[in-house]
């Protein structure tokens, strides 16, 4: 398990936990509205190699851009074989 900022690139995973209390209320709500939830399938698509740029990831069938501060609160695990 790793946070989204450190999870390997282009490796399908599953959201294992989200530290909702680390996020501001509107941020948390928007995140939920975009489909971030425990159990959702996720994949990091783009992450600038240097610096602190945002991250683009696939969540469900959607591509979403978010900043590293938010991505750090999202924990990802390799998908369980049952899924």
């Amino acid at each position, binding site marked *: 398990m790793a946070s989204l900022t450190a999870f390997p690139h282009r490796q399908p995973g599953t959201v294992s936990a989200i530290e909702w209390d680390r996020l501001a209320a509107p*941020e948390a709500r928007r995140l939920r509205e975009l489909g971030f939830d425990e159990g959702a399938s996720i994949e990091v698509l783009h992450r600038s190699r240097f610096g602190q740029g945002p991250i683009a990831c696939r969540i469900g*069938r959607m591509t979403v851009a978010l900043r590293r501060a938010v991505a750090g609160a999202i924990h990802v695990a390799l998908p369980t074989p049952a899924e």
Partner: protein
Amino acid sequence: MHPAPLVALVGNPNAGKSALFNALTGARQKVGNYPGVTVERHHGRLVLPDGRPAELVDLPGAYSLEPSSPDERVTRDVVTGTGGFERVPDALVVVVDAANLDNHLRFAMQLIALGRPVVIALNMVDLAERDGLVLDAGRLSAELGVPVIPTVAVRRRGLDELREALGGLVDREPAAAAAPEDIRALQRRARTVARAAIVSETPTRRWTQTLDRVALHPVAGPVLLLGILFVMFQAVFTWAATPADMIDAAFGGLEGWITTNTGASFLRSLVTDGLIAGVGAVVVFLPQILILFLFILVLEASGYMVRAAFLMDRLMAGVGLSGRAFIPLLSSFACAVPGIMATRTIDDEKDRLTTILIAPLMTCSARWPVYTLIIGAMIPNTQVAPFVQLQGLVMFGLLIVGVAGAYGAALVLRRTVTRGASSGFMMEMPKYQWPLLRDIGIGLWTRAMIFLKRAGTIIAGTTVVLWLLLSFPKPPEGSGISPVDYSVAGRIGNAIEVVVRPIGFNRDIALALLPAMAAREVAVSAIGTVYAIDDSEGEAGQTAISDRLKARWSLPTALAFLMWFVWAPQCISTIAVTRRETNGWKWPAFMVGYLFAAAYIFAGITYWLAVAVGL
């Protein structure tokens, strides 16, 4: 008689709502504003299967009934029948992206729970199939308890079925609203329903992801973005030249026709010197504005704009803004008014306010006529390097000063008046798609009409008023006093000149500054009008404005004038839209204050530096 039934289109952003709206209403649509808020209201007419007309409104995209921006608030208020923006819709068309079913269904289910008659448009089913996703609309309909129509708005598929379903719905009595459900429970239920409706799902490499490998690449991405911006600005100047010349010739022809076919009179002078010259000077820029909007509309419709925001986020974060601010700021190069309105999509209040306050610093198309005229007249067109001409370089420099000024202003504002926690950046990145000629056409047509209406009302009005103020009272015969000096406007100009003389401005400029408040480009026609009236006793009527400028202005004055225009908040429409968007006079007053102060200081520095180095 009953008014026509009202049908509202509602759904997530990027569900293809606008394309569906355009397909259903065609040219029978209008853009207005919701009262009290600057949310655009798109509405049009739809013909039901029994021949009755219905009114269709396209509500702003939203993710849920819990609004986080003014746009989403309008959507919530309309569908729940509160807020008084609209009569309560008789039926809702809920648009969902077939490829994003689990996510879009959550909002759809919230809307169904309201109890109003609902039909689901399962949109973009063709794209979903291309992505290897096959859906069972019948099964989805059974799960949700409302009709589900598969549609492909851009290919006009499913439109008749949708009309058919609406015909049966608009007269139905609404049911009672169900109790709102917890968002997480709703999300889980949406996922279950979506899974039930999916017949088969084969993972395929989607071409959106392939394109993103280049567009979002840490090196190739920014290079591509710069290239696109370069082509855009290049196109604005080169493509627009021919149509602009044609418009110019048409206005010149009209003026000539009137001059030869009517006797010299007060009225003729008003029409030719005032109205035609003033409006013509502005309408000439229609091609440039449309080309700029063409690029912006294509970038938006194709899905690239969000990628640009992604790439710019890093840079914008440096001054406490987010990548989202890039989109309204780019639009501000065409005009700050739609740019400021586009800030509505920024959820964070401080972030949005800062973007509004710096938007007027983007070199809007109204400044180009001013820059072009002054640079053309005062800056020699010498070659400074291969492919680089001094005039072009000065133009580019002014653009850069504006962007750098905005960057600096944002930096200062975010640490002072709009201080607050750094805002986030979270955005859905839609699939790439070919922009539809028809949608782009409708968008351009709307912009052109807004611009021409402005030219025909505000700009024509101010030009005429200025002409009148410059023409009266007439100096006594043979007194030798210049007619401009003797007129009302001349006296006002002389008073203003006292204030602006320290920064190198003369009376003509002082005079042009006032009408330029109506629209920046009026400065050009105002200077022209001043000289036309001033020289009316002489033979100089035919001399071009640029020749008169060369005779009357020094280079430091011209440079100071250009610098003034980089900063000055001039146009009243910008101030008015800022007032509407910020709900009060506080922020527009602040904006006007800080920009005028900056304009005065930087124009002054420019003037004295230029004088000091002996220009």
